[in-house]
């Protein structure tokens, strides 16, 4: 009984879809491809690099180390989002009034912010960014904070030190001492716990017990922040932007440089896929050609290739890569090239060679020689198309290896320093001690995406292997 185990492309695809693992793999891959396309389309490469490299000022309006927004479901409470109110932007909650002082060149600038705070947790940070215009003398600024319970806290006046000065409210020692003394006097000699931060004192319900124990609840309601400033000079002006930083941001959170992780996670997808697929594809194709030529011609050529392969297989791959990247400045393309060069004479050559050696003896090769096909023609038109299908599952299954390789290099700090990739995110997280500090999402998100990619290719590769390799089928 002749068992015809070879099928055309369409039949192979049809058979592939009968395997649930293949469908799952393809679904995940489709998702990753969609992610990649979205990433590349919405944030072009140059912009992505610039954004990721960007200094603090690019992301200044983002909270540091914020959790992803969906974490709310697990936390069970409403976590604060970032609120930005800018006097230059007309809108709800901000108002600005400029009153010139008659008879002088001074102006009184009053900016009022209304913050309706309804979250179950404190903000992570509060900053006020000033933008002033003046000739000689900088404006004199007074800050007043009014809490929903009616408490009004006045802060001592200060002069701006530069046209673009900032008040880092949450870490300022002056602010803290003002708050502490306010509450100390208000509650008559209470010993304010030194665990309490400016944020807690500002946004918390300051009861006597709370102040002493150092545990305050969030006070929800309307907060008013007023900036009274005196500007000097005809053309002087003052604008201010208050940022009440939340604890969550975006679908993926932020890192310690306030960068939204979703950019790196999004951009990591096309990089991972492109790198993995390109490396795997080029390596497989080159190995295939080399193995076929060696196996076909035999003799000295085959011997040289085999010995070369054996030496290559003994060489330690990763240390080489580490050495190269330690000594030379590298980017992702160089990494790709080096990885391919170091993989060409790998173990795949031995198995492909065995395959070619057996195909060499097939009758149709003999027939081709009889009607005059040249060696080159036989290699490229008769042998390679035959060995291609068995190599495809291996090609697919090798992709995760290369993806992890790139991630490992980035993680070790040896990868492309500017490209936002998943490995780079892990590297940043590691360097910032993310797990120590409880920023688990920073590590889990890229790791999960890496594993998802690996699963997708692994499922697809296994299913393809069973389709292409008839012996693994259940017949």
């Amino acid at each position: 009984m002749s068992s015809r185990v070879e099928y055309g492309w369409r039949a192979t695809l049809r058979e592939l879809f009968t395997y649930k693992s293949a469908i799952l793999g393809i679904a995940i891959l489709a998702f990753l491809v969609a992610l990649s396309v979205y990433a590349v389309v919405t944030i072009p490469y140059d912009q992505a690099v610039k954004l990721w490299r960007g200094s603090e000022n690019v992301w200044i309006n983002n909270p540091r180390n914020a959790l992803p927004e969906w974490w709310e479901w697990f936390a069970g409470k409403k976590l604060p989002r970032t609120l930005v109110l800018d006097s230059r932007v007309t809108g709800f909650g901000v108002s600005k009034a400029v009153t010139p002082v008659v008879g002088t060149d001074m102006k009184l600038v009053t900016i009022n912010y209304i913050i309706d705070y309804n979250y179950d947790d404190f903000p992570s940070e509060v900053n006020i960014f000033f933008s002033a215009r003046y000739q000689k003398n900088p404006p004199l600024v007074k800050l007043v904070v009014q809490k929903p319970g009616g408490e009004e806290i006045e802060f001592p006046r200060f002069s701006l030190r530069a046209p673009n000065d900032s008040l880092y409210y949450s870490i300022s020692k002056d602010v803290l001492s003002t708050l502490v003394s306010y509450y100390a006097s208000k509650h008559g000699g209470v010993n304010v716990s030194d665990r309490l931060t400016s944020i807690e004192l500002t946004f918390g319900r300051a009861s006597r017990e709370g102040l002493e124990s150092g545990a305050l609840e969030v006070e929800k309601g309307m907060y008013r922040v007023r900036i009274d400033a005196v500007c000097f000079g005809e053309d002087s002006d003052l604008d201010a932007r208050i940022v009440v930083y939340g604890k969550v941001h975006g679908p993926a959170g932020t890192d310690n440089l306030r960068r939204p992780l979703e950019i790196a996670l999004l951009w990591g997808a096309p990089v991972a896929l492109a790198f993995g697929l390109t490396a795997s594809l080029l390596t497989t194709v080159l190995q295939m050609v080399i193995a076929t030529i060696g196996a076909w011609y035999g003799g000295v050529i085959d011997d040289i290739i085999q010995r070369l392969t054996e030496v290559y297989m003994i060489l330690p791959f990763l240390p080489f890569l580490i050495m190269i990247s330690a000594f030379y400045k590298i980017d992702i393309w160089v990494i790709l090239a080096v990885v391919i060069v170091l993989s060409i004479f790998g173990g795949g050559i031995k198995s492909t060679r065995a395959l070619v050696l057996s195909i060499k003896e097939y009758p149709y090769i003999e027939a081709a020689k009889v009607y005059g096909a040249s060696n080159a023609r036989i290699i490229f038109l008769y042998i390679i198309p035959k060995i291609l299908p068995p190599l495809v599952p291996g090609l697919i299954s090798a992709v995760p290896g290369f993806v992890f390789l790139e991630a490992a290099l980035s993680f070790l700090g040896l990868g492309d320093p500017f490209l936002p990739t998943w490995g780079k995110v892990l590297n940043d997280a590691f360097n910032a001690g993310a797990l120590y500090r409880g920023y688990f999402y920073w590590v889990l998100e890229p790791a999960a995406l890496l594993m998802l990619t690996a699963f997708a290719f692994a499922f697809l590769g296994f299913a393809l292997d069973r389709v292409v390799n008839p012996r693994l089928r259940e017949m």
Partner: protein
Amino acid sequence: MGEDNVLLRVENLKMWHAMRRGLFGGVVYVRAVDGVTFSLAPGEAVSVVGESGSGKTTLGKTILRLHEPTDGKLIFKGRDITHTPEKELMWFKRETGLVQQDPYGAMPSFMTIYRILEEPLIIHKVGTKEERSEMIFKALEEVRLTPVEDFAFKYPHMLSGGQLQRVAIARALILKPSLVVADEPVSMLDASVRVEILTLMRELQEKRGISFIYITHDLSTTRYFSEWIFIMYAGHIVERARTKALLQNPLHPYTRALLAAIPDPDPENRKRFREVPPGEPPSLVNPPPGCRFAPRCPYATERCRREEPPEFEVEPDHFVKCWLYVGAR
């Protein structure tokens, strides 16, 4: 086999395969073809009959220059092609064709039938694309694979063994060769299909006047196919004769044993034993001196075991390599 009109002349052809004997042994040779001589006229069909290991397949492949002969001469259309390098043999490859035993193995599984038939034409730069298309469809018609448009764009796995052998025949004939070697072309096919394929080959051979070398182990098929039969044993042609003559009057003891061993469908067969010589063919690595059939031959003499017999022409067009006929020319 007139000497004047000769397509192929084989003179004392030898084909020895080198084989490594273990790690420390030297090289030993398997003497697959060990001194074969004959001529083939244009349009003549010859059956080469032998068991596995007789060297018949190697003979066919060597004649097609798939191997370079170890010794002897191979002369085709008057030109000595024994040691010609492959690059200079394109003209010869255009003149020859091969039909192989395994129909599925003989076709590249990833090419359509059309493409498979186009390959020889492309390689030898025959015709334009349209002309080639015509030739391919004609070839399919000739081997009765109709409707041709249907078959042309199928893949090998979609065809049965018999149909694929027709494709193989079409492929072998598409360059209009003058010599075709068919190596066990029907032994992998079902019994009812064999006749069809053999008949087709015979028709085409006669119509186009192609010389055929039909290699087989099944003596019963030869009478329907060829004018001559060569019997091969252990690398030698032990008997050569016209088909009828050989089947009616077998001379060599091996030929006789072969004929005695083959059953026809006859209910009387089960009631008696067949008289056949015991043993098996000798190793081709160290063949015995003298006649290679001697160890099994019921008529072997001392001389048979010592000296290899030459070929004797016992009657016109009937040659035997056996000391029993030393009286003849």
